[in-house]
């Protein structure tokens, strides 16, 4: 995997300029937002390099890439920086040829963007569940709220009668949702999908997608990362790297 490199922390030298013909993504192997961008890079076959950032020990130079040191950030060979995961994904779809992940039709494009609005509570709720469970707290209320969000998404799939959120083929909106669904199991909340069969079918279909497959994170490695992360171990981000 292109992103199997050590996370850079304080005291590291800033990387050089991005060579022409390549785009760089500043990332972290387990971050769901950066995962979106890596899915789009892969799906469109865009030549890229990944620089992982140690999010608990950020290099000083990284704040020249993003004012608050967040990931993901794209950097191209013209030194242009693009951040916010959704903006980065749209930029890649616009700037690079080949398969378009957003539809061409303006109304269908708008529909995908409206669907993204429906999704906005999911990242926060899944994270809160993870933190609660890791800290030994119950999270019944949070899980209930998450199930409600999943019901809303289930309704969309039911109404559309399609496998994917954009129609019968996978498209941008599916990739934008996917990272959080991939994490449900390792976060310990996969049972939140118990009452949403269409959404379960969707996750099964997603796991068949070559791009999703290629970037799937091994469950044991993810668990190893989570263990170290919740112990505040700064080496967490490199867990599972063999080099």
């Amino acid at each position: 995997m292109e992103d199997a490199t050590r996370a850079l922390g304080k005291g590291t030298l800033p990387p050089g300029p991005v060579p022409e013909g390549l785009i760089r993504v500043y990332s972290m192997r387990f971050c769901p937002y950066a995962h979106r961008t890596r899915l789009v890079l892969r799906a469109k076959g865009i030549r890229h390099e990944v620089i992982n950032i140690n999010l608990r020990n950020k290099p000083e130079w990284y704040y020249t890439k993003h004012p608050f040191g967040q990931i993901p950030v794209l950097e191209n060979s013209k030194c242009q920086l693009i951040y916010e995961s959704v903006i980065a994904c749209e930029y890649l779809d616009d700037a690079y040829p080949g398969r378009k992940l957003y539809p061409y039709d303006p109304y269908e494009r708008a529909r995908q963007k409206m669907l993204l609005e429906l999704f906005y509570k999911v990242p926060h709720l899944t994270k809160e569940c993870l933190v609660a469970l890791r800290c030994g707290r119950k999270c019944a209320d949070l899980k209930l709220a998450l199930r409600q969000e999943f019901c809303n998404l289930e309704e969309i799939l039911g109404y559309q009668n399609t496998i994917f959120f954009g129609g019968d083929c996978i498209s941008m909106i599916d990739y934008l949702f996917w990272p959080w669904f991939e994490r449900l199991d390792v976060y310990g909340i996969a049972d939140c999908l118990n009452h949403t069969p269409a959404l379960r079918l969707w996750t099964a279909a997603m796991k068949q997608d070559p791009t999703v497959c290629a970037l799937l994170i091994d469950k044991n490695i993810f668990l190893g990362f989570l263990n170290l992360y919740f112990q505040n171990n700064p080496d967490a981000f490199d867990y599972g790297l063999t080099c």
Partner: protein
Amino acid sequence: MRFCPFAQRTRLVLKAKGIRHEIININLKNKPEWFFKKNPFGLVPVLENSQGQLIYESAITCEYLDEEYPGKKLLPDDPYEKACQKMVFELFSKVPSLVTSFLRRQNEEDCYGLKEELWKELNKLEEVLTNKKTTFFGGNSLSMIDYLIWPWFEWLEVLELNDCVDHTPKLKLWMAAMREDPAVSALLTEPKVLRGFFNLYLQNSPEACDYGL
């Protein structure tokens, strides 16, 4: 709704692109039941076309209009410039709720705290104009991002928050330049009408949305 800043974004784009349209105002203090079929969230603005397609969320409606209709493109063609406009839009994202909080403030302490927060956010926008060295947020001509953020700046005068741009001279110049734009000036609301609306709206009056008619 005549005074909704989010809906004003859409009306600005409709005007700027010369798109023939009709307006149905919704009483936000007494929503018709049928409106929830147009937008399950019950919010304005919502676009509806002759194919029965519904589009909501103000920024999404604006982008849809720009893509669907011919004429002057408000969003740049260049992918990076387009991404820059969206990044500026994110930078602006805290302003609407701060301005609304200011409107709803209860006392003077709230006032100062909110003003400080607003200054902070406006400084971010000033920095963009400083770095770009252009009059508008998308370059030397007015474009989508300027229309998207304008409505709250129109409110600053009415809310007596003009001093919030005293330390942001480029933003002040931008505001003056915006008022020269035909679409912006065509949609300006008289300050006393806006004030009248605010008073009634804060009292939760169902007549608020029709103030001045």
